[in-house]
């Protein structure tokens, strides 16, 4: 058991090395990744002055907020009402679908809309819809296990005392599910904020999100301290999501 514990801890450490190195490099007072030139906030200051980066982060935040709010809320309704296996299976299949296939099909659909309806949805609307397309089933799948905590008797009691369906949902079901709701909201937010492939297929050249900007450097293999700073900032939603997620889930013990 002792060697196993050591192994597990070594693996955990290894998982954090690349991310840790990148965050360290964003504070490195040198343009070369393998030279430590001392601690600096220079790259963050440069990032502050870089309007395109702020616009990109802002775009990502707006899309991720809209997506996570819509997906989590609707996902909760789905998980609460549609409890049969067939509904869940349809959502599960969507979750494991290969990204390229899904993104290409969405782009193809947007092209058809553009050609035959004459509405060009590529850009913010396309990105929002493409993200919603995969986060809705994701929220459904993530929330479904927590429905076991909503007891039938609590719901029936509320209904017998005269609460409407909507009132029961907001006053009984939602409070019980709040930690799960927050956890799912955060996972969806971090996912939508970080995702690149689906965005690439559905955005327009004018609508740049943070991953799109990061890609323009990453796909050419260009290391740049200002981009390390941007990438380090982009880690924040994921980290906050992970921490709050495990706390929220703990409540159901």
């Amino acid at each position, binding site marked *: 058991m002792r060697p*196993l514990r050591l*192994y*597990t*801890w070594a*693996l*955990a450490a290894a*998982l954090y*090395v*690349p*991310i840790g*190195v990148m965050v360290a490099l964003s504070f490195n007072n040198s343009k070369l*990744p*393998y030279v430590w030139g001392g601690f600096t906030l220079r790259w963050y200051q440069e990032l502050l002055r870089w309007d395109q980066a702020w616009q990109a982060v802002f775009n990502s935040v707006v899309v991720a907020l809209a997506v996570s709010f819509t997906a989590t809320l*609707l996902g909760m*309704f789905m998980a*609460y009402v*549609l409890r049969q296996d067939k*509904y869940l299976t*349809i*959502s*599960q*299949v*969507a979750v*494991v*679908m*290969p990204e*390229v*296939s*899904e993104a*290409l*099909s*969405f*782009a*193809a*659909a947007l*092209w*058809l809309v553009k050609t035959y309806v004459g509405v060009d949805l590529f850009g913010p609307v396309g990105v929002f819809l493409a993200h*919603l*397309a995969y986060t*809705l*089933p994701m929220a459904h799948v993530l929330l479904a296990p927590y429905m076991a905590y909503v007891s039938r008797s609590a719901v029936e009691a509320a209904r017998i005392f005269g609460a409407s*369906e*909507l009132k029961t949902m907001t006053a009984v079901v939602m409070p019980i599910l709040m930690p799960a709701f927050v956890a799912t909201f955060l996972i969806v937010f971090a*996912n939508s*904020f*970080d995702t*690149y492939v689906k965005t690439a297929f559905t955005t327009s050249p004018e609508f740049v999100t943070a*991953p799109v900007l990061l890609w323009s*450097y*990453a*796909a050419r*293999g260009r*290391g740049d301290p200002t*981009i*390390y700073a941007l*990438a380090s900032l*982009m*880690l924040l939603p*994921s*980290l906050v999501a992970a921490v709050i997620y495990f706390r929220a889930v703990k409540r159901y013990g």
Partner: protein
Amino acid sequence: MIRRVALAAFASVVLLFYVPFLALGYYISGGGDLKLPSLSMVVTTFLLAAATAVVAIAVAYPAAYYLAKYGSEFEFALLTAPLWVGTLLKAYSLLALFAIVEKFTGIALWGTAAGVLVGMVYEYLPYALLTLYAAVEKLSETPVNAARVLGASRLQAFFRVELPLTMPGVAAAFILVFLFAMGEVVMPAVLGAWKVYTFGSYVWDLYFKARDFFSGSVLSLVLAALSLLATYVVVRTIRSISI
């Protein structure tokens, strides 16, 4: 009313996720010149995906075993939290790490299949870990105790009893990781520097460079169909574990 909202939400899943696949059918019915990927590319993708799955499972298994048997909640959180970090961020952080490794050891990983393999294992390890964790957690102590009472050493008991019992979980993890890796775009592009050319990169280029909707649609559908088949197999094996 609540039922109606839920059904509308469900309808939008179908409309947004499944109906676009019909658009692929539209482009396929339009016909065209099918540009198949070269055999060597398919082989590369296949081998890379299989290697990713094998390495990810081999690395994750001992940790999954430990977590399921003795692990604390904190250790579980620590190992699964990387799931929430996006693929592109992981790829970019490895890019920086590769530059440092190359400088100090002389081992060039950027632009090689080995580099892409490292990236994909890094990305899919948590998935393998979670699947294996589920399989080990369901193991009952009885068969192991029986083997121990009958004189098997701890290692013998593991290799002859526990490992065979978790094989369905190993198979499920393999299929899951293999499948994700087959369609992977980001890691080969960023860490393979477009020199390690995979199926995913090919579909990507068909859309972004060649604008060849016909071939892209056909290949996407093939990938999607394979994934459906694999998911079906995974779901069946996972069910058989619980019995």
